[in-house]
């Protein structure tokens, strides 16, 4: 994928902020689901995956559980096929049954909602889960479909010529969320 030309405008979350936000979300998930018994995590490639791993690990530490984590690439379910440069396809790996499970779907940024729409289609092709709950690190508004997150790290109002840049240690070497201007 081409590197976007970005100019940093503001720092939203630093490493410590991200850690606190994810810990808070872990507790919210446990509260809402009354424990972790039926949960499975699925991270949306690319940055949803490390986020899913971090949150599930927090829950494992709290509950002495061993929650399963899967990876989902939605490239083949996109609704804009042929309209832009092909994104690099990452691996989908869901090595467990999702039927009747409560799926915690995790992504880094919620924007138009189309990625989540594609994810729902993909997941339903794998089976019929009991529920799908959505975790996003950042909700930046501007939904084009009726999609909403169940757990939000931070709400950031943005304009359309801004870009929310999420960097995570596992992928980018550093934990940092900034608002950037597209040049």
């Amino acid at each position, binding site marked *: 994928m081409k590197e976007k030309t970005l100019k940093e405008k503001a720092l939203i979350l630093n490493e410590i902020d991200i850690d606190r936000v994810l810990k808070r979300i872990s507790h919210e998930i446990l509260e809402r689901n009354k424990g972790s018994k039926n949960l499975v995590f699925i991270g949306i490639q690319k940055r949803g995956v490390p986020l899913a791993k971090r949150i599930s690990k927090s829950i494992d530490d709290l509950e002495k559980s061993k929650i399963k984590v899967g990876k989902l690439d939605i490239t*083949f379910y996109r609704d804009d096929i*042929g309209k832009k440069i*092909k994104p690099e*396809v990452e*691996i989908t790996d869901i090595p467990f049954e999702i039927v009747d499970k409560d799926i915690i779907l995790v992504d880094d940024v919620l924007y138009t909602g189309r990625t989540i729409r594609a994810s729902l*289609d993909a997941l339903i092709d*794998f089976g019929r889960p009991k529920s799908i709950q959505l975790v996003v690190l950042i909700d930046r508004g501007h939904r084009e479909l009726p999609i909403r997150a169940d757990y939000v790290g931070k709400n950031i109002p943005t304009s359309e010529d801004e870009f929310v840049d999420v960097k995570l240690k596992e992928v980018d070497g550093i934990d940092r969320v900034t608002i950037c201007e597209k040049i």
Partner: protein
Amino acid sequence: MLSVKSILNVEDLSLEDINLVLSNADSFLEVLKRDLKKVPTLRGKTIINLFFEPSTRTKTSFELAAKRMNADLVNFSAPTSSLKKGESIIDTVKTIIAMKVDLIIVRHPDSGAAKFIFKKTNIPVINAGDGKNEHPTQALLDLYTIRKKFKDYKKVKVAIVGDILNSRVARSNIKLFKKMGLDVSVVSPPMLLPENMDYFNVGIKHNIDDVIEDVDVLYMLRMQFERHSRKLYPSIREYNEYLGLNMDRVSKMKKESIVMHPGPVNRGIEISEEVMNLNDKSSDRLLIDTQVTYGVAVRMALLYLLLG
């Protein structure tokens, strides 16, 4: 994005193209492992299988690949159509164009047919075998099979055994494997080698025993009986003696070496019954069926990269 609009031959593909196809094949292989082996990616796209020569494997492989991606695929088998009434290829193709297809998959007994059709229609074409010239998708799936087994294929020794003269599979494979840096040699009696072997720049042997102990990939070709207008070999027994794979020869192979074949196998001619039965004993030696599975994934990747 691929650097080409059609898959006509191996030469046109850049290294980036080849790696793009193979890495996408991994993702499609995962789709093929699911219970619901479908993705909506090519919904609304129309693909035509234009086969002027008989085929089971390749045709079905492409059909499956298309359908798993929700594309609409139509089969056109030459003998059952108006080609019998004397319609030329181009008239046939024009009829099909008028039906607004997005991609044509062609197999034809004349070398260069696929390129011809692409030039005339400007619709993306995949060459599924043109005369003795090339069969690029077979080469790609064979390369993928080798890569899955050996990871670093630059150290891999391949020996292609059999009727090189009449084999488009051999030509595509030699070109692609050499392009990717594999060590390629052929095993063939002189009368089954093309005159211009220097062009291919590969090692040449005339007896399978010369390579059997050293080779990593033994690629067996089918004896092309239907292409032999005159007798190019004294007898099947003699072919067997110099080029046939039997259990005795298999026992001399390195532990990790594999046997491949594009199919269909002439049992008892290229490969003995006993060796073919290894397939059933869940041996890792014969990858013929694996090639077929990988073939669908590689073809899905090609359709995706050309149409998606």
